């Protein structure tokens, strides 16, 4: 039996433990935010990774001779068409290229003075072993002045940054757990001191340490659940507000924080976990302290 159905100790009258639900509520609130942040970052990294995995951009570097550029482009397309590892490819026309450049260089994007490379989006078949270097070698045999970008350089940097943020969120979560444990230990020890006489009576009439520990654990679980629900009530509108903010702003500025059922289940598990941590901590603290008594 995890919990005693009733308590022989007046733990519910303890003034010192009244603040515990609020403290746990703040811990749960912070932990939900930390985990939500981790989930968002993780989803963003996955989305970016999935977006560029298996895609390459072939660039035909412009030369002074437009006819030569066109000939090289056709040669590249021929190589791509005869490569069985390639699922599809799409040569970007000049108009689209100019549209992409316009936000950055303005009207100059369409100027004849600005040499524009010819870009080809390439999508590899799944599970192929063709790499950017392999395709590059293959193209070099037929065409000069071609570069290949597999987007890995900037993506790796972004993923590293996200992983750093995730690690920080984990550290925050760890501190929250440690702070919760510390608070419960302190509260439990105070309770043990306050009820020392009653505990002595229970011992003398034959109560096992577990019998006494269960009463503290049950009380800690109750306070933990109360704090968990409070924390959840604080975190839910905060997350909703952030999600609403993300939707109302330019989606390129804020990542999408729309959660799936698994994410929500994970967030809901947090207050339950904190309550269980509080319960286990109280029980262990009582057992360790009682072990020092006769």
């Amino acid at each position, binding site marked *: 039996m995890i919990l005693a159905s009733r308590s*022989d100790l*007046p733990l519910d*009258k303890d003034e010192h433990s009244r603040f515990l639900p609020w403290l746990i509520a703040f811990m749960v609130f912070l932990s939900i935010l930390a985990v939500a942040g981790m989930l968002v970052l993780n989803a963003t990294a996955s989305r970016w990774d999935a977006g560029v995995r298996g895609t390459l951009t072939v660039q035909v570097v412009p030369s002074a001779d437009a006819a030569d550029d066109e000939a090289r482009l056709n040669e590249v397309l021929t190589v791509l068409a005869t490569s069985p590892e390639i699922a599809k490819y799409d040569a970007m026309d000049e108009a689209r290229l100019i549209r992409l450049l316009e936000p950055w260089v303005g009207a100059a994007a369409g100027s004849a003075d600005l040499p524009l490379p010819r870009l080809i989006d390439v999508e590899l078949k799944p599970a192929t072993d063709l790499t950017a270097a392999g395709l590059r070698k293959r193209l070099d045999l037929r065409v000069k002045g071609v570069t290949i970008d597999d987007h890995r350089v900037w993506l790796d940097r972004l993923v590293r940054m996200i992983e750093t943020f995730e690690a920080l969120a984990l550290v925050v979560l760890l501190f929250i757990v440690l702070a919760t444990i510390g608070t419960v230990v302190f509260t439990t020890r105070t309770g043990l001191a306050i009820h020392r*006489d*009653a505990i*002595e*009576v*229970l*011992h*003398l*009439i*034959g*109560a*096992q*340490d577990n*019998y006494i520990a269960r009463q503290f654990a049950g009380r800690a679980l109750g306070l933990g659940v109360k704090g968990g629900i409070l924390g959840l009530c604080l975190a839910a509108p905060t997350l909703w507000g952030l999600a609403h903010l993300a939707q109302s702003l330019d989606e390129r500025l804020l990542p999408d924080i729309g959660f799936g059922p698994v994410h929500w289940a994970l967030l809901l598990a947090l207050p339950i976990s904190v309550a269980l941590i509080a319960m286990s901590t109280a029980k262990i603290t009582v057992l360790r302290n009682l*072990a020092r008594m*006769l």
Partner: protein
Amino acid sequence: MITEFDEPIVRFENVGLRYGLGPEVLQDVSFSLDPGAFHFLIGESGAGKSSLLKLIYLALRPTRGLISLFGKDIATTPREQLPALRRRVGVVFQEFKLLNHLSAFDNVALPLRVAGVKRKDVNRHVAELLAWVGLKDHMKARPPTLSGGQQQRVAIARAVISRPRLLLADEPTGNVDDTMGYRLIHLFEELNKLGTTVIIATHNQQLVERLGYTQLRLDDGQFSVIPGRKQKAPPSEGRAQTAVETGKSTNSAADSRIDTEDTFRNPPNVENFL
């Protein structure tokens, strides 16, 4: 074959006790009590009576010497086995040690609950015992609302509810008038007749002389035994005689186990003693 009923209930061998670095409050205490004994533990205030009782009910460890309870050396008994020993000892504390936030009913029910007795049985036994000690109408009352005598009866009921083989009472007459004191002693005698070994610590010499049981005497930590004029006749159930420093009786008490359940079903009229 030696059974637990052949073992002394309590055995002290050269037991000494000191608190911290202070002087020894008990020195070389040696005695053994066989099942069915009834003794007074006497001595002036501060002589060490409460300390001796605390050693017996395992609230203290001796500084030296050997104590065995129900045949088990407490020094070598693992800590997790001590609750089982304590459940066989009923204690009426000098200051009662009732839990003030619990009702009289819940206080008396505690020993059964910690022993894991079913709720239905707890309710039945506790209600019967409280009625037996004349507190039928005060079951829901909390100790602070009860008189000294009523609290004392709650404490006694708690001490006997789990059918202890050993009952210790520390100054049980200290807080009540003489009439009530004698009534309580008679209650203990009745319990003793039902098979419980009883030790009563008191400094009421008049009471001790009048009843005439063997006295365990403490003077500044020195222990001695004063045989009483009233020797308990060997109970018809075969209970062992008291053996204090004179060796154990040969009587077996193995067949003298009390059917306390039956006692509770058909309680003696203890109200007469209260």
